[in-house]
């Protein structure tokens, strides 16, 4: 896989996620962590942007960060893969590069 992009800021507070989506090449992986997990939820003002991005990128979300914030896995956008820390490690190993959108 090409690049793993990690986003740890809420899409409501920063433009990290929209910048990442705009600049990630086709075939990228995008992993939402920490406050970035709010970008994975269905039915928000940003859901459409994320769903559109999923045509070109694989989107993942870190389950423990969802649970900490009380966000139900059932309400994550369909097609986003929920992974744990070992999944995070695997993604990092599979990708050539990691880009952190702080």
């Amino acid at each position, binding site marked *: 896989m090409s690049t793993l992009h990690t986003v740890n*800021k809420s899409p409501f507070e920063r433009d990290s996620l929209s910048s990442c989506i705009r600049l990630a090449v086709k075939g990228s992986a995008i992993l939402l962590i920490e406050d970035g997990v*709010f970008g994975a*939820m269905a039915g928000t003002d940003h859901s459409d942007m994320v769903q559109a991005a999923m045509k070109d990128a694989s989107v993942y979300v870190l389950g423990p960060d969802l*649970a900490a*914030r009380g966000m139900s896995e059932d309400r994550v956008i369909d097609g986003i893969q929920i992974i744990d820390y070992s999944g995070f490690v695997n993604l990092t190993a599979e990708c050539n590069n990691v880009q952190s959108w702080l």
Partner: protein
Amino acid sequence: MATKKFMFLNRKAPYGTVYALESLEVVLIGAAFEQDVSLAFIGDGVYQIAKNQNTDGIGMKNFSPTYKALGDYEVTKLYVEKESLEARGLTLDDLMDLTWEDEDDDYAEKPSIRLVSAAELAAVFDEQDVVLSF
């Protein structure tokens, strides 16, 4: 000591930054000095009082149960902006059940959360002596 109206404005999600926890600590201090304390949750601040927070997986303390104790400190006015909830696809059902006991009404349990529009919240801000932003 004169009582002042203190409003704590919460705009950040919990855990990603320390603002939410710091705000909660100052709220408890304000309440201990018997001030008229209100809280407002707008923007990502509404996530602070989301139900079912479980921090076992991230190695941080889950401080959300502390919000349930606010009623015992006579902090009974928690304003939540409706527009902020809606933008996040959330409803009152997604928030913790926060209540207080009214000793003047046979200790009846009453809801602490008040769902308000931006215009209503603006009027509440206008009544305050001090607004502290977190």
